[in-house]
């Protein structure tokens, strides 16, 4: 059985530091390499992720993971899963901390992601053995491991009663850095974030804010620069659309109204721009890629 006890030398240092709460043993799947724990960032957030949250995770986590920082999260759907996915896509390392026995995949329908994590030198860990089913109290307890493993915690979208706030609390208790992604104050998913901001969490606006917190030598991998837009020649209208979308994502109806043109023609333009990779569609809104 794959098990690391707290007496073991390989037991992550940072996690040990949380004191009495540190799990006595960790069960794991995958290959246990100590260096995966050196520079960890916990990424947590709402299960009901909005398209804004998804974009932020994709943008920030990709860059952070590509810089060689391990992304730790709780394998839930929503922000957790998006963070794991983004880390894998960037070719980075990621650790999933399960709220259930090590033999269970929870949620079960994410088994593809589970397989991907293990295939790409990632780790799945849990303090529970066998096929112990997740219960209401195992989720918050799992969060202390997520926070305990990481030098910093990044919260992306959290509602008023989000479980991410529990992770944030642990981060404060363990004296870890707490980053938050600011969101629109009108969104339900920003209420928890606003609370954290008021309590003194650090807002971030780019991956650099996080990377600066980590030692420079961890950046073993080359950072992926976002694709430059001017590879393609945009005509006047396309450029105007891009300029507008850069400020705010928008629906096709709104775009047609703004540029005062028939929606059929706007549809044609947007399809072509999408095919060229200039913009992308999520839900029913368009974004600049």
């Amino acid at each position, binding site marked *: 059985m794959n098990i690391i006890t707290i007496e073991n030398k390989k037991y992550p240092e940072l996690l040990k530091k949380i004191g009495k709460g540190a799990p006595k043993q960790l069960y794991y799947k995958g290959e246990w390499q100590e260096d995966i724990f050196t520079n960890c960032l916990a990424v947590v957030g709402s*299960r*009901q*992720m*909005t*398209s804004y949250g*998804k974009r932020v995770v994709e943008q920030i986590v990709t860059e952070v993971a590509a810089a060689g920082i391990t992304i730790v999260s709780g394998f839930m*759907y*929503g922000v957790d899963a998006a963070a794991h996915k983004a880390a894998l896509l960037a070719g980075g390392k990621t650790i999933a901390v399960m709220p259930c026995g090590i033999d269970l995949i929870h*949620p079960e*329908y994410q088994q593809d992601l589970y397989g991907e994590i293990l295939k790409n030198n990632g780790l799945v860990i849990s303090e529970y053995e066998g096929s112990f089913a997740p219960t209401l109290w195992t989720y918050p307890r799992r969060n202390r491991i997520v926070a305990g493993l990481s030098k910093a915690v990044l919260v992306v979208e959290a*509602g008023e009663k989000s479980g991410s706030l529990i992770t944030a609390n642990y981060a404060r208790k363990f004296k870890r850095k707490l980053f938050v992604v600011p969101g629109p104050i*009108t*969104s*339900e*998913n920003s209420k928890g974030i606003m609370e954290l901001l008021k309590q003194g969490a650090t807002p971030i606006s780019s991956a650099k804010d996080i990377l600066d917190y980590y030692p420079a030598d961890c950046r073993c991998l080359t950072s992926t620069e976002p694709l430059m837009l001017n590879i393609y020649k945009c005509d006047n209208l396309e450029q105007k659309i891009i300029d507008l979308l850069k400020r705010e994502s928008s*629906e*096709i*109806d709104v775009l*047609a*109204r703004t540029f005062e043109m*028939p*929606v*059929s*023609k706007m*549809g*044609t*333009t*947007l*399809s*072509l721009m*999408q*095919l060229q990779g200039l913009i992308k*569609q999520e*839900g*029913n809104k368009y974004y600049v890629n």
Partner: protein
Amino acid sequence: MLVKVASAANIGLEMIGIDVEVNVASRGLPAFDIVGLPDKAVAESKERVKTAILSSDVDFPNKKITVNLAPADIPKEGASYDLPIAVGILATAVSCQIPEKSLFFGELSLDGSLRHTKGALLLALFAKEAGFKNIFVPKDSANEAAVIKGINVFPVENLIQLLRHFSGKEAVKSLTPGVDEKTPGVCVEAEFDMAEILGQEQAKRAMEIAAAGGHNILLIGSPGAGKTMLARALPGILPLLADEESLEVTKIYSAAGQIPAGGSLLRVPPFRSPHHTASSVGLIGGGQRPPPGEISLAHRGVLFLDEFNEFPRAVLEAMRQPLEDGQLTISRAKERVKYPARFMLLASANPCPCGYLNHPKKACICSLRQIKKYQKRVSGPILDRIDLHIDVPPVDIRELSENQKASEFLEPSEKIRQRVTQARNIQRQRFGDEHIFTNAEMKNPQVKKYCNLSKPAEQILQQAGLKFQLSARAYLKMIKVARTIADLEGSPDIGIPHMAEALQYRPKSYEA
């Protein structure tokens, strides 16, 4: 004395000739019997006939009367045999001559008058095929029968009038066929005008394309976004039925008994919106003497399924084959009935159980599992048969009403209908002898034959196939939709703009 009167029995959309043999025996105890597998309505016919004859001031023969409905092994149902039976008895009672090559059909009232009877149009069609010259039908059903040219349709009001006609005292004037052509153009009335709907430009455009090409369309959006309003506005942009289509539709409605008294050809495309508690028999058709179901009643029109995901899966799955073939055969132990069902499916659904997925203001409270389960209620094969998938995002009415009034986006339905009609005409000309009317009906070889993709348009489609992971069937759908968009513009070839716009209506995944 034995008298034979011709009538017909209705099975599905077909008619079978029935000989009504009436024998008034000169000997035997007075009696009145009907044989030849009559159902309850036919058996009760004797009470109606007897009273109706008495009400017409004719003495009912107090003799042994036997009525045989031949061929004897076909079950007879409905009240349409009242008139032939009465005519047979009258012929002996007042010894008058029944005109040759005549069919009698209709339900009697106790006062001797005739009531509106379902199936008059089918009867007229049968009469023409079988070589009859005259048909006698209730006055209220005569308009319907008069649609068929080449036979004399006599609108009969009551038995007295009929007797006068037989005796030559006062002839019933036969209806001249094609009366309906003189009736003024029927106006399609929709609950809403497209101009009343603020915002939703793309959804309206998609409705226009769907109407023009007869494409199936799925509207997905939060509660209150305007899905139902859009759907209810659809009849206003549909063109009237052409002669051929109109006859097809009227036949089905005639069989279902849904043509109002005095009604003639149906010109307005049907719009059916069954509730989601509909049974599969109600939707598809079936039962002992299978009447047409909702999908057949929506033939050449629209079948609107609101709350698509709430329909039982089995009911939706049953629509798969008719959606593909445009017709269905209902097979039961004793009979097989074929009904056409070439309808345009208009479905509307919420994106998730709570309805607020991707809503800008309200948070969705569904878990991913719930959302997936909800979306899985409609199977892939059904979704695959829907050409246009469209989002109906919630709109801020207050903001819109201020800066959108009088803008060019608010086109009235009538204007859209003109474009749709034009596109339909182009399609009709193109498909001349293919026995199809719209782009949506095209099968693989026809797509190859009629959908000229310009080289760049083809490249775009291929690119999109890779980018959006389109299935082979989705490819075909995109081409069909692009064909309709080109038709709306009057363009013979499918160019880049048409293809690119068609891509807007591809199915999208709704995962959060």
